[in-house]
């Protein structure tokens, strides 16, 4: 049922919207992994990023492409949580760093303890082994979408990569990580805007990489791949 809803949503809304309002030009499309397990690591400027990356796959494979998305944002109310889980098939991720293993509700953030609200939909409480359900999806052969910058940030500007992705790569050292540099979607629908404005979007798929033995080396390589792709698609800053 959920798979059918997802298929309908992409067929009737997402794909026509991307084709007409945006238009996507993907370079090195042959580097896109056709089967899982694999991780697509993209820079993040817009909610449209996820829709675009999922639409790169044929409808038959759509349900195997799973965006990893922040639980605090996408499970914050029932409507969004229903959409995120039922239509987008997200794998919710707690954004709190792993080393803070004891839950510390911070009053200034209005912090609610883990397990509040939509968290009952998560396969496991986040503070035990926050990546377990994500690793299970990889083990099942899914293709994951991950935004290592952690949030959308300033439109059309890359921000520093967070090392969260390295934890996952360390646990699944043979899984290929494919860096994808996206441009233009931050203009079409940046953070904080609701009105999409048509722009052509560009994407550059990089060479796959995997766990380099330690976290720093892995992150350096990933960062270097992004820098290369950004150089290839060099454009003036959007100010």
């Amino acid at each position: 049922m959920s798979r059918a809803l997802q298929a309908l949503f992409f067929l009737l809304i997402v794909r026509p919207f991307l084709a007409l309002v945006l238009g996507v030009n993907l370079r090195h499309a042959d580097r896109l992994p056709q089967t899982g397990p694999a991780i697509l690591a993209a820079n993040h400027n817009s909610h449209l990023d996820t829709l675009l990356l999922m639409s790169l796959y044929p409808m038959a494979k759509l349900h195997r492409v799973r965006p990893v998305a922040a639980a605090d944002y996408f499970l914050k109310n029932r409507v969004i949580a229903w959409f995120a889980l039922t239509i987008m098939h997200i794998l919710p991720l707690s954004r709190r760093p792993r080393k803070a293993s004891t839950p510390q509700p911070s009053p200034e953030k209005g912090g609610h303890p883990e397990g509040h609200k939509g968290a009952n939909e998560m396969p496991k409480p986040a503070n035990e082994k926050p990546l377990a359900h994500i690793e299970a999806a990889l083990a099942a052969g899914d293709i994951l979408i991950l935004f290592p910058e952690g949030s959308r940030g300033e439109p059309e500007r890359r921000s520093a990569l967070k090392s969260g992705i390295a934890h996952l790569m360390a646990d699944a050292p043979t899984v290929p990580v494919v860096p994808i540099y996206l441009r233009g979607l931050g203009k079409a629908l940046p953070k904080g805007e609701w009105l999409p404005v048509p722009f052509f979007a560009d994407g550059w798929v990089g060479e796959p990489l995997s766990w380099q033995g330690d976290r720093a080396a892995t992150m350096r390589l990933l960062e270097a791949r992004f820098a290369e792709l950004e150089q290839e698609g060099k454009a003036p800053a959007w100010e």
Partner: protein
Amino acid sequence: MPPNLQAALYGILALLVAGTVIIGLKKWLRPGAGDHELWLRMRSWWIMAGLFVLAIAVDRALSIVFFALVSFLALKEYFSIIPTRRADRRVLFWAYAAIPVQYFWVYDAWFGLFIIFIPVYLFLFIPLKMVIVGETQGFLKAAGTLHWGLMTTVFSLSHAAFLLALPDAKNPAAGSAGLLLFLVFLTQFNDVMQFVWGKLAGRRKVIPKVSPGKTVAGFVGGIATTTLVAWLAAPYLTPLTGWQPIAAGLIIGIGGFVGDVTISAIKRDLGIKDSGSLIPGHGGILDRVDSLTYTAPLFFHFVYYLHY
């Protein structure tokens, strides 16, 4: 559909078949590095010609929607390649919103508004929206580039569609669709002929600073061929008589060249080779309609002044 129009469509079909056969033979007899590109280009011609013919064969409204869509894609491509300001994101939305309005005037055959809506009202409205946003850094450049895009991709191109709003009775040979077919076919034919003459005999460059691929032979040969075909086809598709088809051929030949190199100059300025990748083998949609942005208004006013 008027019989002359039908005959012209068969003629285009024959040209497409001939082009495909020639490229196929070249690929077979003298294989070269550019073959795949040529093949893609030919395939795209089939698709573009098919869509265009389908639109004008069905009805006037669909043809107008077709041109509105071409304007939209061209404007989107333009806004995507030029540097825009972050502050103008919503202003661009209003520029896009002008497209359905402009094409509604076409559909309504409301010449008075069609001819001033973008040059006057949008020209005044866009800076107003920008003032409301309040970002003054780069204001003049942004206002200029936004309006240039609207004039080129929407105002100019909509002249092709407005040919369909002209009364059929004044063109007994083939109706208003005959004029549109004459303009669009000759503009595209001129592009191809300039390319072919340039490849066959081109040596001296016309404007190396803007477009190093353009040669004197391509320019002259293209215009001559276009004018000849205009003279042959005009009696069957247009109300043009006497010297007029020759003038129309020259307008389309020279105008098409200027439109082409104008977009080339912009691409050079921005440091890009193609305006996009929408049409395999051709580049972007601006690369394809660049010549039409000049020929459409020039040909329209030529015919309109003489016969309507």
